[in-house]
Every structure is written in structure tokens, then in C-alpha cells.
């Protein structure tokens, strides 16, 4: 079963545990600036929204890369950057419609979410369930369940 990161912004409190977990997993340090997942704070409405790569099947970044440094991990389904091949041309950052692949000036390569090889640190660190790692075919399960529950709780017509 392929799994995917599922984000529920209503549950996000803006604690940034996910960003720290991401940087710790990839660089061994706590540095929100190096995180591949970013929490946006819309203070006028009070909304916090975590945002990261959704692993497009027909990935714009993959198709745009002139040196084929981005490949699909067959097991996790993640689009993964091969750092030894990447030349830092940044064309993928232009091609990505979502902005979730970005250049890292310290390494001269690009970085994006690779699902931590199948056990995303951000989802493990999230204290509220705003970020979960679920069956890729059933990201709608919780929402469906909420509506189903509503139906199930209707008083019987008879």
C-alpha cells in the first residue's frame, strides 16, 4: 500500500514541531529554515496551514530536470532528488506549480520532501494530527466518516 502525507489545517496550532523534525531528519539539526515542510500563519484569520510536496504522479519537477536527477521511488511513490546528479540549475523550482521544491544555497542542490523513505518525521512529530501519513487511496476517509456519522445520527424517518 502506498501512503501519502495528509494535511488537515484545522488541526494545526503553528507549533512548528514538523519543521524541526524535518530539518533534524535531513540535516541532524533543529533549523526551521532548512525544513521541507512549511507552516503558514494567516494571522488575520487565525489559520495555520502546513504545506509541502504532494508527490505528483506526472511531476513537473521530474519532467523539467535536464539531468534526470529527480526519480520516482517505486516503494514510497515519492519524487526523490539525487543530490549527486543535481546540478543546481533550479529549473525544477520554476516548473513546480506549488513551490515545494527549493534551492539550498549551502549545498548548491535542490531539496524537496522525499517522505523520509516511508516514515515521515513531520507526521510523527505533529502533536495534533494536522499532519498524518495515510493510505494514498483514502485521504478522504476522515471527511467521509464525518459526513457518514452525520447521516448515521439522523433520527429514523419511521
Amino acid at each position, binding site marked *: 500500500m502506498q501512503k501519502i502525507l495528509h494535511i488537515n489545517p484545522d488541526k494545526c496550532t503553528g507549533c512548528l514541531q514538523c519543521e*524541526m523534525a524535518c530539518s533534524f531528519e535531513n540535516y541532524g539539526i533543529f*533549523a526551521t529554515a*532548512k525544513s521541507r515542510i512549511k507552516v503558514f500563519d494567516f494571522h488575520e484569520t*487565525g489559520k495555520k496551514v502546513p504545506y509541502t510536496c504532494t508527490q505528483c504522479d506526472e511531476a513537473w519537477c521530474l519532467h523539467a530536470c535536464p539531468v534526470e536527477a529527480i526519480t520516482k521511488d517505486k516503494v514510497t511513490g515519492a519524487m526523490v532528488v539525487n543530490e549527486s546528479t543535481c546540478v543546481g540549475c533550479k529549473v525544477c523550482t520554476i516548473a513546480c506549480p506549488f513551490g515545494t521544491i527549493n534551492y539550498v544555497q549551502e549545498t548548491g542542490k535542490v531539496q524537496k520532501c522525499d517522505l523520509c523513505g516511508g516514515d515521515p518525521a513531520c507526521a510523527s512529530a505533529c502533536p495534533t494530527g494536522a499532519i498524518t501519513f495515510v493510505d494514498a487511496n483514502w485521504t478522504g476517509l476522515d471527511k467521509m466518516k464525518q459526513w457518514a456519522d452525520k447521516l448515521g445520527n439522523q433520527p429514523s424517518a419511521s
Partner: protein
Amino acid sequence: MTWAGKILRINLTTGSIKTEPLNMQWARDYVGSRGLGSKYLISEIDPKVDPLSPENKLIWATGPLTGTMASTGGRYTVITKGPLTGAIACSNSGGYFGAELKMAGWDMVICEGKSPKPVYLYINDGSVELRDATGLWGKSVWETEAELKKTLQDPLTRVSSIGKAGENHVLYASVVNDLHRAAGRSGVGAVMGSKNLKAIAVRGTLGVGNVRDPKAFMRVTAEKKKILADNAVTGQGLPTYGTQVLMNVINEIGGLPTRNHRDVQFEGAKDISAEAMAAPRATDGKKHLVTNQACFGCTIACGRISKMDETHFTVQNKPQYWGASGGLEYEAAWALGAANGVNDLEALQYANLLCNEEGIDPISFGATVGAVMELYEMGVLTQEQLGIDAKFGSAKALAFFAEQTVNGRGFGVEIGQGSKRLTAKYGHPELSMSVKGQEFPAYDGRAIQGIGLAYATSNRGACHLRGYTIASEVLGIPVKTDPLEHEGKPELVKAFQDATAAFDSSGLCIFTTFAWGLADLAPQMQAACDEAYTTEELEKIGERIWNMEREFNNAAGFTSKDDSLPKRLLTEAAKTGPAKGKVSMLPVMLPLYYKARGWDSEGRPTSETKKRLGL
């Protein structure tokens, strides 16, 4: 480790910027944040210095756990000699600024002298500059943060700044970061204003990387987060209701100071409570509370985000106050509400927004308004002087005074001096509900005996956060004690004060202590920093910090006479509720407290005590 090992020293008079290695011996002995910042301050300034003179210093300090994945690891402290009290001032804030400063590679920023013109400090990792802030002077905290992000072309910059109140030396001006998180008490913002320093803007990309044992640290911090999640207060009460969960509770036990402490129960408490914030409004059917919010790294998320009723008289045609913003926490709701007899939730939130926008402490402001209203009802102050009919309960007067005070207009200038100076000026010093010049928070020392002693002996003037015995006396954490009983409270107060000093110095939030003790902090400190940080060692460090602060205050001229409470709490009995007929038993508790502390009868640490603590 997890100390960055570096401090920034800024001389505002000369404009010089220097990097110094952190004194690692002091770091081990005083940990960080409150303890370590205070050690630096106390070692460098004359205790008798005028707080608003260039000779005073102002320190931003992070702790070793600031900027790590330990829950609540985002705190920083602003330390100086306080203008409201003349005692050590040490105000702690959350939000994101502290962690950003740490991730930029700095444990501490020490500001000295006074800039000849308004400046702000820009820290971008290792690159540090003082920049002209003439154009920012006169702007609010909110405008300053927005303009700096625009000027620096970096929306990820974090800002710690003052508004007009700090510029105008309101004696309880705060330093505000991330729009509505504040180093709130004792007037640290006025000291910043006196130095012509408008803001610190920081961007940190280096991160925090020198954890001693990363594997152990990740394991133990995850275990401790689970304790917070499973605890009724930190896992449910605080995220759902915020600190405001206390409003009805404290009112019921007769410990909610009302109308300048004339009463101990407020008939309007339910109208300004957490429950009221979560209920649909009669006017527009919307809820006041929008959501809860976390500070950096916090898995509790007690913060309130509120939206005002756009038709309320305070904000009609003022769309700048219509968006979601920092909402009422218990202390602010009490000070702006019960302390003045005002039960209009929207008016309280308006005053609260002004406190955040221009940077003042809502506790000292609200409590000072309480004294003004009492003087007005006594006929000492008149409508002509005040510019408004200021009877207890007037939401209009509260909103008017908030506007006048943050903008430095009319009688607001006098309110900005705090209740001690104001009541003394009008011949009634006994009506200032304060200790060492700093106003009481939201608990009455007659109904909750231990907190009265904690107020009287707090090193920064009246404060609930220096020894929150409410945890034990009301909530039963870690053990329930009878709030009406004074016996055993000196030892309880000491234990809370020492443990708090250790938590405050780590970089974590004191709210974790609803679920954690020092035994939970110790393994996190050990994994992150040094195996020497056992529970016992942290307890000793807390006591060392407390005594160090006390010695500074004694040298500044405070004596045992200043460990007192207003006459009202010592002689006027509580009129209603479970504490009816009771006064504070401070005179009985204080000598026992000194004894428990190892101090002489004048409240001075004995030479044996100092030796034991390595002072």
C-alpha cells in the same frame, strides 16, 4: 551543549558590535535565559543605577533548550533593572522570536548605553547591523513588524519591538514579539525606549545542532510530550479554554480580586470567562474565540486567538481591530475586567489589543485603572481631571483610558506611571494593590494564602509566575493544599520559586509544570546539555538563581519592609465566599519563609546559605 556559545554585545552609545564567547562556567551554573541573563546583568551593572539611564543594560537571553524539539522550547527572557520597581526585571515571552535568535547562533544579546538616535538591530545569522529607525519611531508594534519585514524583503524575519508606550517610558511598557506575545511585566519596554532601540529583527538559518546525545534527546522529549498530552490540564484544559479556564474557578473560591481588591468575587465573572469566549454572541451570532494557537515548539497550545464584534462601540469604523489577533488570557481578562468591575468582554478585548499594539502590560495597566476608579468614586479624582465618568464597571472608561495611556495623552500619562506613583500623588498610597511597585495579578492573597506570600517575596514585585502556588492550593498540583491555610505555605512557596527559576532558565515554558516536575526537566537537560543536570542539581540551581536575584535587590536598597502587602489585604477581611472574614497571614508566614530560605531576620541570605549555593 545546545548553548550556541556566543553572545552579542551592542554598545548603543558608540554603535559598536562585538561578539564574545559565552562564559561556560556561568552557563553551567545558571543554565540560560532568566538565570544566565540575570548573572550577566548583575555582574555588569551598579544595583543602584537609574533604570532609564544609559548605565542600565538590557539583555535578551535564550536558554539551552530554546530552539530545540523539547516541547515549549521557544522561550526567551528580557532582563534589566526595572523602572516600575527598581528591582531586577525579568520578563519571559514565547512566540517565535526566541527560537529564531537561537537558530541565528546567539545565546544572548546585551545592549548597553543609549543610541543618539532611534535604531533597530538587524541580526541575519552572523551578520549584525545597527540600522536607522527614525522612520519607525512613533509607530506601533504591529506597524513596526510589518514595515521591517517589508524593508528587509524577508517575510520570515522575526521581530521583538516596542510601540509608542515604550518610547514614552510608560513604566510598565512591554517588549512584544510576533504581534501578540510579550515580555510583559516590569517595564522592560520602557528601558528599551530609553535606549532609543526600537526593535530587534532576526533571521536565523543556522539552527541548533549541538545536542549532546541526539538519540536520547529525541526519545526523552517524545516521552515527555506524551505526559503533556495525557495530562488533563496541559492536554485538555489549556488547549480548549486557555488560562481563562480559571476565571470561574477562582471566582468560586472567592479569590478573584474585584474593584481594586475591595471584593473577592465578581458578579460578572461568567461574562468574561472562557465559556463566554466560546459561546455565540447575542449581537452577531459569532464566537469571540476563533482558535487556540501554539508558540514555537509547544505541544500544549494554550494561546487564544479572538475576533471582535465589529459593531461593538470600541471598534466601529476601526477595521484594523476586526481581524483575528491575540485574545484574552486569564490575567488580562481579570485585570481589564474584574479589577475594574467591567463585564463587557468585547471592551476587554479592545483594551487587550491596544496593550499588544503599543506594548503595555495589561496587568499593571488594568490594576492601575482599578485604583483610578476607586479614587474617582471617593471623589479624589474628578471627571474633569480624567476626561470621563470613571465609575467601577464603566467599559467606556476602560477603553478611553487604554487609548489615552498607550498614546501618552491626557490623564493616560499618569496612568502610565503605575498605581504606586499615581495613588501616592493623590494622597492614598494604601490604594495601590502592588508589591515593590508592581501590581498584583489575578489571585487574592486573603483567599489563597500562599500566593500572598509569593507576591510579597517575588523578586520582580508582585507576580504569580515566580511561584505559582495556585497549582497546589487550587488545582492540587502536585499535591492539594488548603488555600485558606497559611501553615506550610512558606516551604511551599520556596519550593515553587526555586523550581520555577530552573524551568525559566532552561528555555522551556513554565506551563509545562502543570504536568512536569524538575524530574521531567532533568533528563531533557541531561540529554541536551550535560549529565550533571540531575533533579537535585536543578533544584539547587533554582535556589541559587533566586538568592542571586534577592542579593541584587538588597543591594539596590530593598529591605524586609518591602516584602509586604497593601494594608487592605492585611486588615480588611474578605467580604464573601469561602474566605469570608479572612485576611492575609503574611506577618506569620514571612519569618518562617526567611528561615526556610536560610536568610536572616532582615531577609538577607546568610553567609552559610551563600556558601552552600556557591554565591
